[in-house]
């Protein structure tokens, strides 16, 4: 385990903090214990660095109880990114062969099927129909969750983009982007996927790559370059692509209050806050009702960085709280721009809150207008 002096200093400071960010830590919320907290994780690492105490099995578990949502960073005056520090330590834990066994199945599935859901690779996106067009060519990198668990997001994305005049294609050679692996420290396998995807994407004749999953977006725009894997065309999140075409988007009265959930990968990690909001406000013709915790202060949905795989009930507890926050501000519709967030939030939403992903609400607006015209 190695941390350079700068990181060791940051870990020391975090370990000395009287828990100024703990109140927003979703895993503190879920466990109500001082162990799965930013301070707790930092103290374990500090004790390891100064030789007080090695990480034991429970210590490793505590490090894997982090969602890496970086909400703590929003409240950290010294700007210590403990999520990134935790992720760095996870890499060594994986190398040491000490990863929680609950993650082994996920990694094995990705290795074998190129997706974490143990679904056949052949069925990844062969069901997605696309049309010919003279428009700008977008390669839609569907991501595993839209491809296997939230298929309507994938089909709606294609339809919306084609309506806007784009030529949309998907690739049967798309593999998992590697996000679940990078976030849980399995860099070796993550890079195998990354190398494959970079080769496939760079060989494509598309003008741009578009993604609906913020996890994919972060990996493609940040992790790949960090490992010197360069993509030769622009990568855009669907919210960016739609925002560029905002004047052409349809509008519909959704007859209800709409709020927006910021995905951690898209918001805090990639700084994209305004684009999805502009799209939603355009297609709904109304102003969003913001939750109390929003933008860089948004609560995580509970689904990230392996937490749902390892601790599903705690992940759901966090998702349920986020749903409650949406209901507290009177929202009828909760829009997110992340298939993974949508999957979690919809599972906790009940009957009085509709959860939609961004392409879905855009397509609903389009269909609504058509219905009115017809």
């Amino acid at each position: 385990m190695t941390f350079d002096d700068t990181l060791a200093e940051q870990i020391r400071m975090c370990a000395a903090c009287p828990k100024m960010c703990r109140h927003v830590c979703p895993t503190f919320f879920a466990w109500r214990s001082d162990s799965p907290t930013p301070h707790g994780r930092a103290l374990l690492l500090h004790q390891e660095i100064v030789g007080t105490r090695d990480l034991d099995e429970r210590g490793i578990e505590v490090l894997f109880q982090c969602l890496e949502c970086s909400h703590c960073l929003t409240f950290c005056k010294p700007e210590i990114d403990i999520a990134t520090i935790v992720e760095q330590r996870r890499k060594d834990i994986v190398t040491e062969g000490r990863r929680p066994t609950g993650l082994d199945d996920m990694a094995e599935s990705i290795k074998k099927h190129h997706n974490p859901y143990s679904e056949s690779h052949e069925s990844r996106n062969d069901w997605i129909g696309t049309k010919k067009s003279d428009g700008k060519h977008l390669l839609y990198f569907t991501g595993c969750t839209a491809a296997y668990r939230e298929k309507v997001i994938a089909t709606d994305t294609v339809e919306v983009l084609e309506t806007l005049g784009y030529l949309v294609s998907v690739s049967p050679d798309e593999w998992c982007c590697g996000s679940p692996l990078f976030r849980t420290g399995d860099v070796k396998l993550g890079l195998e996927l990354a190398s494959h995807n970079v080769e496939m994407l760079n060989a494509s004749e598309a003008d741009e790559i578009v993604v609906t999953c913020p996890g994919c977006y972060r990996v493609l725009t940040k992790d790949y370059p960090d490992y010197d894997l360069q993509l030769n065309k622009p990568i855009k999140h669907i919210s960016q692509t739609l925002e560029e075409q905002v004047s052409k988007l349809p509008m519909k009265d959704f007859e209800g209050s709409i709020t927006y959930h910021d995905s951690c990968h898209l918001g805090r990690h990639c700084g994209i806050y305004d684009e999805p909001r502009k799209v939603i406000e355009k297609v709904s013709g109304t102003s969003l009702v913001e939750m109390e915790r929003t933008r860089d202060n948004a609560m995580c949905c509970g689904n990230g960085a392996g937490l749902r795989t390892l601790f599903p009930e705690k992940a759901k507890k966090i998702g349920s709280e986020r749903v409650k926050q949406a209901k507290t501000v009177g929202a009828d519709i909760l829009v997110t721009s992340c298939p993974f967030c949508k999957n979690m939030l919809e599972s906790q939403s009940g009957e009085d809150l509709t959860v939609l992903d961004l392409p879905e609400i855009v397509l609903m607006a389009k269909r609504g207008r058509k219905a009115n015209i017809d």
Partner: protein
Amino acid sequence: MKLLVDPKTKKKLYDSMVSIVGKEHVTQLETDRVLNAHDAWQLNAAKLRAGEMMPLADMIVFPASGEEIAKILVVANDLKVPVIPVGGGAGTCGGTLAIYGGIQLDMKRMSKIHPIDHESMTVRVEAGVVGIDLEEEVNRHGYTLGHTPTSLRSSNMGGFIATRSGGSLSSLYGKIEDLTLGLQVILPNGSTVDCKAVPRHSVGPDLQQLFIGSEGVLGIITEATLRLFLIPEERRFRSYSFPDIHSGLEAIRHIFRIGIEPSVARLYDPEDAAMAFSMHFKFEEGHCMLLLGFDGDSAQNDIDENKSMKICTEQGGTDHGEGPAKRWWEHRYDMYYPSRLTTSGFAIGDTIDIVATYDKLENIYHAMKEAMEAHDAIVMSHFSHMYHNGGSIYMIFFSSRATAEEAWETYTKIWDDGVAVCLREGGTMSHQHGVGFSRSTYIEDELGSAFSVLKQIKEVLDPNGIMNPGKLGLGVRK
């Protein structure tokens, strides 16, 4: 290593705890015990940084109700095992250290906020509610608790009450002992004490006040009913510099004397003023800075502010507008974060939050500063939490030594000498932080003959001495 709770007893204890709260809510794992071992006592933090271990509890138990706590205490009492209540873990005096092992009773699962009583302007809450969560909840309904300690994000209601906590607006809203109308406590024998929520009463001594500040040595605080205030129409700020402590203190004293109740009244000595404000505001070197805040409607604030400004001017103050006071309010949590400097090497600092009446405050300040500086420490102070009859001084010190041994020794000497001088000059050693473990050796000197009363109460309520032994100077074991 000496076993404080023998293996056989520990096994019995663990099995009992599991049967009461469920296996998921009991942990004996070392990592959990390490991460729960400390609070925010500066000596703890410095020792942890230096690689030292804190004493560990034998297990941590997370109860969900008063009923569970009653059962836990009955078992612990029967087995004569220490029980240390843990709130947010944000205390500054080592009050949650498991110095004799035993059970750390972590209250964080008990975080229910009952519906607000709008008619009476009260709210009933469980002890494990984190301060900021409660404040945000009552804010949603147009209220404030008026309780804003710097630890608001990390401390909880039970801890506030157990340590007689005070917030930065206590001049107007009061401390937690003023804000608590009703209280529920579970005694070591498992019985429940309910102190009814009433605004005032005339039914013997106020037993509720016996438990407020009891730091877990008499029982476990499980829930409280708290007062609420309407969120003020405006919070207005004003700042004045003064050539010396005396004139600044006189201004504060005269403001309170004529019945004005500012929400904020903080006087920074020259060193603290330079540290806190000179980066952003221009004022004469060596001057003090007074921050005032007024909560209320605009018309009332006009009156209070104008009268206060007149007094400040009469006492030789220079007006600096709202700037310094407003900036302090907006950045009031910043000083609580660690920095590279304060966590480097064997650096250590702390605050002695003494309190006294106006006739003694200035003497205490000068005498403590001299005594503490004699140990080559940087000492800076502000007078805050001011009231009609006196107020508190935050005597803040910082020192750094070449070795851990020297650093911890210096730290202790500064505390010993600082508190001794405070008591000699007629002050009381804590306004809001409590006693815990760090000040337990001074409590006999502080309370004098009253300490024996406290001891006798302890012996009656906790004859086996299981409740947070070693804290408040009670239940110290060999």
